[in-house]
């Protein structure tokens, strides 16, 4: 009985992101691509993400907004030098949260 309960708990933990809809948000192909890139590359700004993933910059912004709402990504505006520009350019830098790591692992496990 105890084994059954603990198995249920593990399954519940594994499935919780699928049940609360977060997994559905992550499985949108472009969003998954963006999350994967952010996981590999660390903090990256929107235009860089657009260039690397082939997703339109406006779509990237939309997906980042959605992911931020779900607390899977955090972002902030900062000034950086882009392509040897003389002036600093304001960019939106994004990075993934610990929750995103968990959800991506959950999604991968459920796909196996």
């Amino acid at each position: 009985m105890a084994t059954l309960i603990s198995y249920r708990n593990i399954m519940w933990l594994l499935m919780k992101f699928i049940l609360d809809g977060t997994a559905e948000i992550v499985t949108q192909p472009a969003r998954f691509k963006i999350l994967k890139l952010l996981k590999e590359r660390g903090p990256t700004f929107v235009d860089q993400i657009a260039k690397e993933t082939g997703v339109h910059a406006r779509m990237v912004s939309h997906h980042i907004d959605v992911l931020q709402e779900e607390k899977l990504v955090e972002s902030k505006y900062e000034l950086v030098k882009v392509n040897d520009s003389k002036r600093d350019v304001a960019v939106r830098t994004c990075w993934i949260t610990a929750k995103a790591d968990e959800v991506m692992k959950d999604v991968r496990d459920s796909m196996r």
Partner: protein
Amino acid sequence: MSKFSLFKELADFFSFKARRLILLALVVASVAGTFYWHWPAIARLLFTFGYVALIVLAIESQAGYFVDFTKAAVGTFLFSRRYKPVPLSDPEVDALARKMGVRGRVKVYSTDNPWVRGPFTNGFTSRVYLPLSWIRSFPKPEIIAVLAHEFSHVTRRLRFALELTLAAAFAYGLATFLSMLTVTLLLVFEVTQISLAFLLASFVSWRNEYRADREGARFTGPEGLISVFEFWKNKISRDDGSETHPPLSNRIKKLEPLLDEPKPPQ
């Protein structure tokens, strides 16, 4: 394997393009068939076999879609008491409806009826239904984009009805014209009318969907709809559209140029 699954698999075998080609072949054969009585006996015999075979093929290829459509419509109607739709009240939705010129009180409902698999608009009552599963799994900006698409169906429903009526009238008109040229078999007359009406209705419906996408994107931006279409495109096995809806990849392609236009004011 049950008889029904064999039938369904056979119906699923035809892509939308193939289904449309079969109907087109039927219309062309019908125009030729108008002059049936002027042909020699052997040609008449061969035509009859070929024509009947084409009709059977057309019925078989169209059946899959109509069986699914009827099942969904009957299921939605039969279970409407058990899964009573709940009004969806949201200031953002109301504001969008006002902006899009939806007259009167906005009537958006959410339902957990398992037969309602996607959002749809009842053209007669102007009510928009959203499955609860969609509200749970899509983020709010995407739900708003989907609703903008549906509201466009509400505002343009009279135009759509007029276009459908014109399509049906044209099909009937062509069949009547052909029957005036010579003595036409009743079968040929009916088949011409029905197959042409199906073809034109599908054309009108696709146009209506593209228009609703464009209209919705004008108010909410194309991002939400593109994202939803990409999600479903990734989930379905074959993206070749249906009698009522164009392929998702085409809809995405038509929305993508709007990404380079200025964002609509929120």
